[in-house]
């Protein structure tokens, strides 16, 4: 599993660019605020450069030209920062694993893309592996199970870090579902283009989540979370679905994903 090696001497108060990701920006801004809080609590100086999208949808649809345009804009927007951190293994993985590939034949940008990839991290792995956080000083009463989103797990080596941080949340008990490392069936545009297959895959995932007995499922990628929440909601399941950052930042007043806006329960089991 590719694991990012942490720099030997991270700056005291590193300047971190929050790469909020287009899904969080549009769908669930609270995750962005949770990420900003966690980074600030860890001693980072957080900036939010103007941003759109990392280009992954274009890249995965075979449209390299659009992907490269967006990648160039990203590299420019975050160029002055020490680190780029995203509350998503998939978007961080796009930068980390695929920007170098995208510019491999471009002598002008190759070096910049590689350096940019080097400083880009998924949120929980940045907190643990770079900032050395072991306790987020939050509490969240209840039981949760954690889904390993594919790109975070297989491209960024995110597996132990979120579990370690969740382990420090007072009142929270983590139980493992069977096959937590199996895809939820989201796959970006796949979820719409091959909706029937995507739905069959997420039905399996929903079954594993329900079997775990946990009233709340967490993950580090909003795409997967929307997929799982959409399925569980269609099944009238009471399982709450949340981004891992929400729990780590103690945002339990925010309604779970796909849950009605009011009354603002959000507490696991109260959905």
């Amino acid at each position, binding site marked *: 599993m590719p694991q990012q090696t942490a720099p030997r001497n991270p700056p005291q108060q590193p300047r971190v660019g929050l790469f909020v990701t287009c899904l969080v920006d549009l*769908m669930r*801004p609270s995750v962005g605020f949770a990420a900003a809080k966690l980074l600030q609590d860890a001693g980072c100086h957080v*900036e939010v450069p103007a941003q759109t999208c990392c280009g992954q949808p274009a890249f995965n649809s075979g449209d390299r030209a*659009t992907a490269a345009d967006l990648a160039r804009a990203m590299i420019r927007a975050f160029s002055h920062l020490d680190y780029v951190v995203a509350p998503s293994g998939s978007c961080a993985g796009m930068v980390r694993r695929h920007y170098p590939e995208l510019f491999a034949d471009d002598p002008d940008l190759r070096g910049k893309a590689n350096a940019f990839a080097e400083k880009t991290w998924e949120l929980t792995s940045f907190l643990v592996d770079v900032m050395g956080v072991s306790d987020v000083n939050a509490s969240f009463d209840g039981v949760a199970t954690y889904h390993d989103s594919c790109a975070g797990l297989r491209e960024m080596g995110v597996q132990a870090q979120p579990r370690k941080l969740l382990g420090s949340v007072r009142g929270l008990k983590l139980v493992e579902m069977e096959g937590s490392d199996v895809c939820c069936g989201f796959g970006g545009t*796949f979820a719409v283009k*091959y909706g029937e297959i995507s739905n*069959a*895959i997420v039905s399996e995932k929903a079954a594993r989540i329900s079997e775990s007995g946990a009233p709340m499922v967490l993950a580090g990628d909003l795409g997967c979370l929307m997929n799982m929440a959409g399925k569980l*909601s*269609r099944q009238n399941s009471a399982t709450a679905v949340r981004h891992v950052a929400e729990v780590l930042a103690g945002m339990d007043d925010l309604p779970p994903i796909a849950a009605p806006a009011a009354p603002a329960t959000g507490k696991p089991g109260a959905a």
Partner: protein
Amino acid sequence: MTAAITSPAFRENAHQALEDKQLQAVLGTMRTGFSVKRAEAAAALPEFEALRDSARDIKNHTLAHLDLYLEQYEAKVTASGGHVHYARDAAEARRIVADICRDLGAKTVTKGKSMISEEIGLNDHLEREGFTPVETDLGEYIIQLRHETPSHIIAPAFHLSAAQVEQDFRRVHTQLPPERDLSEPVSLLNEARQMLRQHFLAADVGITGANFLIAETGTSVIVTNEGNGDLTQTLPKAHIVLASLEKLVPTLDDCAQMLRVLARSATGQDSSVYTTFSTGPRRAGDADGPGAYHVVLLDNGRTGMLGTSFQEMLRCIRCGACMNHCPVYQAVGGHAYGWTYPGPMGSVLTPSLIGVEKGGHLPNASTFCGRCESVCPVRIPLPKLMRHWREKEFERHLTPATTRSGLALWGFFARRPWLYRQATRLGAATLALAARGRGKFAALPFASGWTQGRDFPAPEGRTFQAMWAAEAGKRRRAGGKPGAKEQNP
């Protein structure tokens, strides 16, 4: 012509597969079958990851010098009394095999498991030419009875339940007592063996595939769990090895290394029950063996992959691990892919061999979860290669018009941050308003593929960038707060 192609109808095939309750029940067993066994086998061997590296390197080296190893292999086969035939495409391979059979005056042709035989549609051709091909691998035997194609490259009848096989046996083996007990799977194997015995003895020609061809010695290697391959290749007058040319490895040592990753990746066994090496025909003084030994080496588009990014696909040793770990394969099974090779390896290989016009759905029907690559014993970057197919489709304007225009529209906004922020602000607000506090949509006109089976979560209502900018404005007015600086207008 090759085996029948229904890949262009992937979507419809998949729909049927999802509706097929029996198939779904069988596919459900996959979750706890192959993948668990593979994980245990990999964990039990400390050098397994290093072996995967060396398996990759051996194959890369061979492909880089394929011409040399082919020459060496051919010279060795010839020296041991065998014959090597090169077949450019499926038709040529079929003709060569049929000619050998005809020259020997053959009637019955027994066959070990060979995906190349499936790829070139050999059985139908042999029947048309007046021969009787008999599959001797249990799985292949079953699907031959049912006039089907394999749904899995190492478990051809994976899509069937034992009860279905029992029904087929009762339907076809009418010479056996109807009251016989076939409730245990092993009784099915025994019955197939009993039926096959007469064919083994009557066979004039035996055809097998090859897991590896060894250049150093001119040897073909097969691995089986039933021992049928040995009888297929030693009893008849002639043994025909039907293999594609990338099956080569340089030396016996290399072959031994490859074998160590093959069975573990495929079934989780340390090694298959039978590993059989054959070199040339029977020599004077040999106790058994075929009188003639032929190797038919199929290209069928493979040399065209050399020197392209798809060359990596030619490392494949057909272990099946990628499909065993694929969520899409587990959902729809192998037949949906519409040609000989299913799952992730098929999604890369099929467009290479039959053309991306026909196989274009396959590399798109992937979530890119990467589990296939994480288990592939020769480390083929399957998602990357699928993406390369998507790039080729995009370049050649084969990407569906709706996807193209959707991408273009999205790209237009994403390239213009200011416009993008206005559009997303408006989008988030409109969607949130439309959701009317329910937190979700049960139907969305532009995403019916999603909402048919799932709700679509509603956005909170404001974009992060807008909220961050607003907070920053507040902080500025209140005299600033350390630790949070904004650049977002």
